[in-house]
């Protein structure tokens, strides 16, 4: 079945084949991961007080799967624990923190993209922006020092895509500029200037001239600004 899927994909790049395949497989295994989540819950309950500390094998697994170092993971664990309700603290593996609590973190409190960040990294079925501990680690990993340009540009694209349709169209770009400019009357861009600016942006980056910026065009533009990697950073 998988081989047929491989042939049916209309993509040229090796990387995209890879993503398509993995997405297919992961969709199949989603219930498996949910089962594992429930198992961790039950085990943590029986483990008692020691569950509030991170077990060693989980720590090494987190180290392998994210760009974070051991200290960063432990610090993230501590801060995430503080956000949880008291009764949830024993089962850190399964609980989700609602978005309004995540936004009380000083690192995200004043960030112009805080809501989009929570929504992008959340894997909750309710699409309410709540984050589990693993989502939180994902977030920190993408924003960490050692994350690659590809990861950062991928997530930046998803964050800027306000309507989640896979491309950056005029509406997304306008919302992006409004997020990043001031709200005072003398600093906000007039509608004339906004139109001109969006035209300039599309002129610079829209290679296939379809009026929107897709992921590869975005990554191409990003690769020409080396400052992106050092400024796309959030550290606890």
């Amino acid at each position, binding site marked *: 079945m998988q081989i047929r899927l491989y042939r049916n994909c209309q993509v040229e790049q090796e990387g995209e084949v890879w993503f398509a395949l993995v997405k297919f497989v992961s969709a199949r295994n989603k219930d498996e991961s949910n089962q594992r*989540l429930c198992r961790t819950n039950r085990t943590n309950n029986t483990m008692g007080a020691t569950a509030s500390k991170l077990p060693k094998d989980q720590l090494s697994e987190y180290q392998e*799967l994210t760009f974070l170092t051991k200290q960063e993971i432990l610090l993230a664990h501590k801060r995430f624990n503080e956000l949880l309700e008291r009764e949830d603290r024993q089962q850190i593996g399964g609980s989700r923190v609602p978005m309004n609590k995540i936004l009380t973190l000083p690192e995200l409190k004043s960030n*112009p993209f805080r809501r989009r960040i929570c929504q992008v990294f959340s894997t909750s079925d309710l699409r309410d922006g709540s984050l589990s501990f693993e989502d939180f680690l994902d977030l920190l990993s993408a924003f960490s020092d050692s994350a690659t340009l590809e990861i950062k540009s991928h997530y930046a694209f998803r964050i800027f895509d306000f309507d989640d349709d896979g491309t950056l169209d005029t509406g997304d770009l306008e919302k992006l500029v409004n997020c*990043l400019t001031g709200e005072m009357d003398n600093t906000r861009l007039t509608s004339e200037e906004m139109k001109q600016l969006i035209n300039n942006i599309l002129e610079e980056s829209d290679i296939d001239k379809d009026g929107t910026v897709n992921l590869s065009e975005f990554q191409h533009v990003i690769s020409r600004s080396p400052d992106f990697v050092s400024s796309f950073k959030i550290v606890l």
Partner: protein
Amino acid sequence: KLPNRARMQAIRSLPMSFSERRNIRLFMVIFLTVLNLLCQHFVRHTLPLKCGSWASVRQRLVIWQDTLKEIGGRFGTSVLSYFQFLKWLLMFNIFSLLINFCFITIPQIVRSPNITHPISFRGLELLTGAGYFNQTVLFYGGYNGEVIKTQPSYNMQLAYLFTIAAYLVLCGVSLIYSMARSFQRNFVLVAGPAYGGAWRLLCSWDFSVINEKAIQHNKDNLSIQLKESLSERLQKKAVVSVSAKLQQISLQLLAWLLSLGLAVGSCTGIYFLELNLNDISDSGNLEEEASTLLVPVVVSLINLVIPLIYALVNKMEHYTNPRTNVYVIILRNVLLKMSILGILCYYWLSDCWESFVGQSVYRLVVVDFIFCLLGSFFTEFLPNIIGTKCFRSLGVPEFDVATNVLNLIYAQTLAWIGIYFSPLLPVIQVVKLFIIFYLKKVSLSMNCQPPKRTGRAAQMQTVYIALLFFPSFVGALSMVAYTVWSLKPSEQCGPFQNLGKPFQVVLDWMKGVQNIPGSEWAWWTFEHVLRNELFFYLITLIVLVAFLAVENFLIALSRKSYIVIIIVIVLSPSPRLMFLCKKLEETSLPEENEAAAPKNN
């Protein structure tokens, strides 16, 4: 270990959620286990990664973590890069201090001959480094190069030479490595629109700023910059006439002539000033000692005033590309500082001259520190007072990252030049860097505002490291190398008293090694390989190329891992076989099982 790391990097770089990455990793482990079974031997799949542990070791050695985070949160990445550069230089100096102290100073203190101190300690020594300090272990003259007769014997001459050589080699390697990494990651030779490209502005939003006022400030600046870029785009339609271009070029030429003229003028001035002053003697005459401070004070004044003149001159010329502007300013400042140092190095040769050089460097370092304090006062504190109380239109000053980094590079060059002549100079450098860190931090929070233009911090970082390597480190290294290889050491003092040149001690030692049976290979290597000049050129080339290539190799290898994983998934078997493979994973990873055992119900 190498392919393993590349595989891990491939998994980390997947832009998907955590649970999906966990599954991918599981598949990869299964595939590897199956492969191992097929090949009939078990390879231990060691977790966690050893290279990950190096990063966590480095993190544990971090000082000033909270302070740096606070600075980054308020002022952004480019200002933070200055403080990180300072911390990096501090590490170099602490390392040098430790090894010099352990290998050179302690043996000398323990076995010190009776050194008479004809001059009592007066306060002026802290500034001039002469007088009481002259015969102490602070300077070259305080070491007497004897062979300490313990079991085994400890040759002070060799120790002195090798410690300093080892430190300089380590510095060089570390600098080359950082330069290669930084170049690879950050330096992009852009052919597109120079500056003010709208995407570049939008994507340079600094996520590490978390202070609310600073964020508001950044938003205002960004909208101003966007408006500026829009109006620039419209203005570009206007054609620049030939006469205007000629005028521009002639102004730029004039500015260059002026700056070079100033640099040459100050060099000649310092040279003649040195010629006219008498050498320091141990006569104990207070006035004479104080007069030796004249040259360092003049040098530091020049270093303070002339860059300001350069900034003024820069205002009159107009470069279309702001990036070129910054590079031109940096180039002029570097030329000035390095030519002054060059002239001073050229001048320093006289009786017990090593100590004299050491003292001169010491004086330069101390006076430079005092002027750094004064400079901070004049360029940050005063403009703040003026900007807020007197002329409100001027506003609060910005933190000038470029000038401050160049000052740090200059100070480090002095430290590297002086290390052969004054082994304990790193003490002063460490104290100086510590105080400058806290001073700049306080000055920053009290006086400065975050930078208006989000400058390309990453690219500038590469330029600064390259400047630290090329004129600064290489220049200091060549001076020390010239001293060791060619100059006759002074007769009355120091560890190399009776030799034609300091390097003689290594030659004699190698001849001694030749006589020991069984180590002819060492002597042969030394004589025919190490003393061959071509060898050094080759080594340099190889080192540079290797570091640049390693990164590319790793990336290429990680791409291959994608194919491996695709094959795994294409061959992805039925759930029953997957269960079997999971069991295999558990048996091949016994150390994980002890913790995982309670999970399996």
